[in-house]
């Protein structure tokens, strides 16, 4: 006789406030129901009541992990409607901030994942290197989480001490290459705990429309930096990471290898930083009537913005589709047939973010 176990919305086995109702037969998961909405703030509606300058701040506060990507996507959508082309230096700084944010998000996930696996030494090591990423972000922006660097028409903070930032990035690279990536890709504890668990087949990945590392770990070569290149990705030459296995190990390995690619992009962008102004001259450009969509690759996958302007200083429609919104439903496909004890690790492997999902 199957029985039901409610997990969440607030539960030690969950990293985020959402609710899983797991139906089990014995120790095996038979079906799963997922409920969200526990941290809904109606950000889309609020954004339709504030002006564009206020909205940059508002959308940046949707999430503490990919805050910068929300601000970039919103600014890019407004720039697209207004036909604004931002200076090259701003494109490079946006790319550097985006990749630093990916590094700190992937490292945070790797730390939490290590805890779920029971590898606490790894958790300490990862959080130590993540602090270095936060230091670099703070050195550039003055802030640790919500950076306030993006504006419509460019960026509002420059990278003045490239050598200092580069030395910080190289230190991060050294720890990633020496410890984090080898342990995540070769270490027996992680391998045995994650290989063959929570498999999402390529077909299911397509069906659920998953994005980001979750899709790439199921063999889908789906990355906005490659498919819809913006910022400085085309100039820097982005290399996609995919694996065919679809299990938790593949999701871990994709994120681990992506971190090395992020470091490479940051180094290259810092070395090639163009000498142009930071932003267009007009600090408050008028956004004419029109509509635009923008896709950017946030740490968890494709972040999508639809923006509609009626020509006033307040957007008439702001639609935000975050990567976790499409990745969380796929947990069902990963969990069915798996042992109940693996649920904490399976749900964590998609790196769910309810701040983004609920908005």
């Amino acid at each position: 006789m199957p029985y039901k176990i409610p997990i969440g919305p607030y539960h030690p086995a969950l990293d985020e406030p959402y609710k899983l109702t797991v139906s089990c037969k014995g120790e095996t998961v038979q079906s799963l129901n997922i409920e969200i909405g526990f941290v809904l703030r109606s950000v889309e509606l609020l954004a339709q009541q504030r002006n564009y300058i206020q909205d940059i701040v508002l959308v940046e506060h949707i999430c503490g992990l990919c805050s910068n990507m929300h601000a970039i996507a919103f600014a890019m959508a407004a720039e697209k409607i207004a036909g604004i082309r931002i200076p090259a230096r701003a494109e490079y700084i946006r790319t550097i901030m985006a990749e630093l944010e990916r590094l700190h998000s992937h490292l945070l996930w790797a730390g939490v994942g290590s805890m779920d696996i029971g590898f606490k030494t790894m958790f300490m090591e990862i959080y130590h290197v993540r602090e270095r990423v936060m230091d670099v972000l703070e050195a550039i922006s003055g802030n640790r989480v919500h950076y306030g660097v993006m504006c419509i028409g460019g960026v509002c903070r420059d990278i003045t001490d490239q050598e200092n930032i580069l030395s910080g990035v190289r230190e991060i690279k050294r720890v990633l290459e020496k410890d984090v990536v080898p342990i995540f890709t070769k270490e027996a504890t992680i391998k045995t705990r994650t290989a063959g668990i929570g498999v999402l087949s390529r077909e299911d990945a397509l069906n659920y429309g998953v994005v980001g590392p979750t899709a790439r770990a199921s063999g889908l070569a789906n990355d906005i930096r490659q498919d819809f290149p913006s910022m400085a990705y085309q100039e820097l030459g982005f290399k996609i990471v995919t694996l065919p296995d679809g299990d938790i190990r593949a999701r871990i390995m994709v994120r681990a290898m992506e971190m090395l690619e992020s470091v490479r992009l940051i180094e290259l962008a810092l070395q090639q930083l163009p000498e142009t102004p930071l932003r267009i001259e007009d600090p408050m450009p008028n956004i004419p009537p029109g509509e635009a969509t923008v896709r950017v690759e946030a740490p968890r996958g494709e972040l999508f913005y639809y923006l509609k302007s009626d020509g006033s200083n307040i957007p008439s429609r702001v639609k935000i589709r975050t990567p976790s919104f499409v990745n969380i439903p796929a947990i069902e496909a990963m969990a069915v047939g798996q042992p109940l004890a693996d649920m904490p690790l399976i749900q964590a492997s998609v790196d769910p973010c309810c701040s983004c999902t609920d908005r």
Partner: protein
Amino acid sequence: MNYEIENRLKQLHSGGLVQNCPDGLWMDLGEATILVLAELMKDLEARLTTISAISIENNETELIYHFAVGGQAVNVKTRTQANAIPSITTVFKAANWIERENHDFFGVNFVGHPNLVRLLRPPQLAEGFFRQPGGAAGAILRGDKNAI
């Protein structure tokens, strides 16, 4: 590939105008049905990104179906009839939560959805909370003097 997508979209209905914009292809669904479009996009191995809803007159909703076919974005506009439209969950599993969200926020009835219950807001509250106007129209309603 882009040319093939554009051509197949044009065949959806007579006079189907496909605009090639910097953010992808845009078209109006016209007299074609959303299920026919969904089948076509599935055939092209498209990924359903999301559905953007905009509240319009007579309690209807404009829906924009956003797809990605590799590196090509496709955006298709349509309108509800009596605030209802067929569900595309039979074609795209990813539409399940997307349609539930639009049902929750805009009160759209996705006919044929297997479980059209609220997604984000508590069931005690009325549907259609996001139907209030944004932009200048919303500012006038709120008496916001800062709107330009």
